[in-house]
């Protein structure tokens, strides 16, 4: 099969940096205003009030978070709003040491999927964990899948109706 591999021209980073090849740079700057929609709009309003809320489908019985106005399994409208606790269980977590553009972070971030109490089992949201240390080793020593956590909220006056109204989730147990 070697015959059917084209000898493509690989460039080194220096070829670009030192201008050995012609380059065109085009910044892409798209500004958007995404409608929050019905379900997430209400979810954001509840966040501002310091509450988490889910949505129940009476056909399958699931209480879903993030909430949606339709059940994607039963393919019918969901039926009612269900208040949830601001505590939960860590389903999975990571300790991330780099930023979105691959620069090193001084203090690692700890993204996690947290199953929220009051929603159906396994119904998680993505957020971050805090109050768990500042180095990879320290954090790995203090976190585990299955740990119980609670939301740490921004002060009421600073909330704006955003997922970041929860600063992070902190451990509930030692």
């Amino acid at each position, binding site marked *: 099969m070697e015959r059917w591999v084209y000898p*493509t*021209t690989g460039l080194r980073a220096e070829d670009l940096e030192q201008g050995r090849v012609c380059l065109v740079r085009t910044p892409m700057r798209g500004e958007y205003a995404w409608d929050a929609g019905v379900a997430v709009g209400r979810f954001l309003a509840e966040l501002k009030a310091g509450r988490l809320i889910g949505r129940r489908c009476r056909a399958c019985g699931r209480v879903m978070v*993030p909430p949606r106005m339709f059940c994607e399994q039963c393919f019918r409208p969901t039926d009612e709003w269900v208040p949830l606790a601001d505590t939960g269980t860590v*389903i999975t977590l990571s300790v*991330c040491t*780099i930023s979105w553009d691959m620069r090193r972070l001084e203090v690692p971030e700890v993204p*996690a999927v947290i199953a929220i109490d009051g929603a159906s089992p396994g119904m998680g949201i993505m957020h971050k964990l805090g109050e768990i240390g500042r180095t990879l080793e320290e954090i790995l020593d203090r976190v585990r899948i299955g740990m119980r956590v609670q939301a740490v909220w921004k002060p009421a006056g600073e909330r704006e109706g955003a997922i970041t109204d929860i600063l992070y989730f902190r451990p509930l147990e030692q």
Partner: protein
Amino acid sequence: MAGRRVAIVGAGMTKFVRRALETGQELAWEAASKALESCEMTLDQIDAVVLGSAPDAFDGVHMKVEYLSPGAGAWGKPTIRGYVGGGTGVFAAIQGWYHIASGMFDTVLVVCEEKMSSCHPHPQAAFNYIFDHTLERPLGPNLLWIFALEMNAYMTKYGLTKRDIAMVAVKNKRNAADHPAALLGDPNITVEDILQSEVLAWPVQRLDVSPVTDGAVAIVMAAEHVARRVTNKPVWVEGVGWSLDTQYWTNRDLSYPTYVEEAARKAYAMAGIKEPRKEIHIVEPYDPFDYKELHHLEGLLLADRGKAAELIALGIANRDGDMPVTPSGGLLGVGNPIAAAGLMKVAEIFWQLRGEAGKRQVPGQPRRGLAQAWGDLMQVGTVIILGI
């Protein structure tokens, strides 16, 4: 088997490189022209074109496939783009299959291309926009988060160690040393190298991840009456399947890819396969991360849940083992130009079944192989089974 019999009759590809001088169009042409040359066909013998490419943001070209089309031989031909994220490469071959199985066309050129190096500050940045704009992006996520979260869920559920998983990266990067198009082949790499590489998002370290890559792959597919005229070694499409899980990824069991199982069951049923572990001789599961190969082997029902690592540890998955897994070197070794990487796996099965894989040839005249890809927001499985 639904519809008319369909065979792959030719395949070609570019070298996989970190950054290509070639434009995306030129990469598509290099692969497409090699694929046609490999089966001594010309463009006027092609009825239709299927083009696959991942998000437009990589190449930085909206309507990317329309842009690529001249290089893919689509001028004046019925052309379609398939797009299911990382699952695209195998899905494009499936689209090629149903174009012909349906009776609509006799010959299809399938081309998959990705030029990731154009995307700055880093190709990973393009993936930021797969996250929910209201509930996830404000947290400042990056793509590695979801892989790391899934890998940790998988490791923890089955008590696997980083060492168990790193053996996949070692096997694949070693296999890739024998692939003439490979970007990251290394015959001497060890588990220690993987375990000592930089931590990116624990448990994911740098050598657990496939590299940013530019490249293209093309195959030629034909209906039976054409295939028999073109080659004495047609490789038949015996089964296909694909399935999508919910986009609400934080509501799923991340330790098991149900959608891969659903896709595999469809493909096995179509191919009349009852015992996949005995009847599939070579596997090319999607391996953008080392744990994904294990995850997918389990979803494909080729290993018990949590037990795929044993296939690697016991050497069963080696090229000369009982069930060779990723003899090409995979995304971890050959490289990961997203859509092209999936089609590279299909091409590998094609070359292996024809006995044309050179130094990578699996011994024992394998008669049936499976290629699988995975993508979208960790939610799609695409499976194709080929046989001679």
